[in-house]
């Protein structure tokens, strides 16, 4: 009974999660859940090996796309905040 109450009680207090880059790792289980559910609705028959393979491919594709999008956004932010002000300073206009 005490263990049950402790488990229920743990759902009433939020976890301590910082705003550091490591908090981005919370993305991984969510992407896994999305890949699993999406593939569960798409495959003809659910058999362990092909299902795991297809889910892994989708999971990898989403992760690669997110990393590429993050790199592009990082590059744009770097140009706007680091390079553009220097160019404007040198400009004669």
């Amino acid at each position: 009974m005490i263990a049950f109450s402790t488990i229920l009680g743990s759902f009433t207090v939020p976890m301590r999660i910082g705003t550091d880059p490591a908090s981005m790792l919370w993305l991984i289980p969510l992407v896994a859940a999305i890949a699993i559910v999406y593939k569960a609705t798409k495959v003809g028959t659910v058999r362990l090996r092909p299902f795991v393979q297809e889910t892994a491919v989708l999971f990898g594709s989403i992760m690669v796309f997110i990393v590429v999008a993050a790199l592009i956004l990082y590059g744009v932010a770097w140009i706007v905040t680091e390079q553009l002000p220097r160019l404007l300073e040198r400009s004669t206009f």
Partner: protein
Amino acid sequence: MMTPWWKSNHALFLILVGALAWLIPGAGHFTLNEKRRGSVIFVAVALTFLVGLYVGSIGVVDPVNAKPWYAAQLMNSPAVLFLGDHVADAYRAAQRASEPAKAYLVYGRANEIGQIYTSIAGLLNLLCIVNAVYMAHLQSLKEAGA
């Protein structure tokens, strides 16, 4: 073999499958004899929702201050209505007593992650509800054609 009464009425059958899929994630597929698919959906959706609740506390289900998120969370199951009602009651009681600590604590990055997890779980279940209804429709057509 006789067709069950709930399968003979096409529209009723689709509504029943959709309602079951909303009531318990994966139950719609289970009804269509897609037991593995139903189990995978149930585990994935329920786990994502519970992780969201654990990370952010049940305060992330907030029908008062986060209505758009709540709409997505409702897609998990009608049980979320009771949870939302309970959280809203606690929030209103805390407002009346002018004691914010009486409401369920929810703040910061944990709130964001909790809301995203629970809402995505709801939207994934919505996808499964639509898929279950579509599969039920195809199954009915197949049986009618056979």
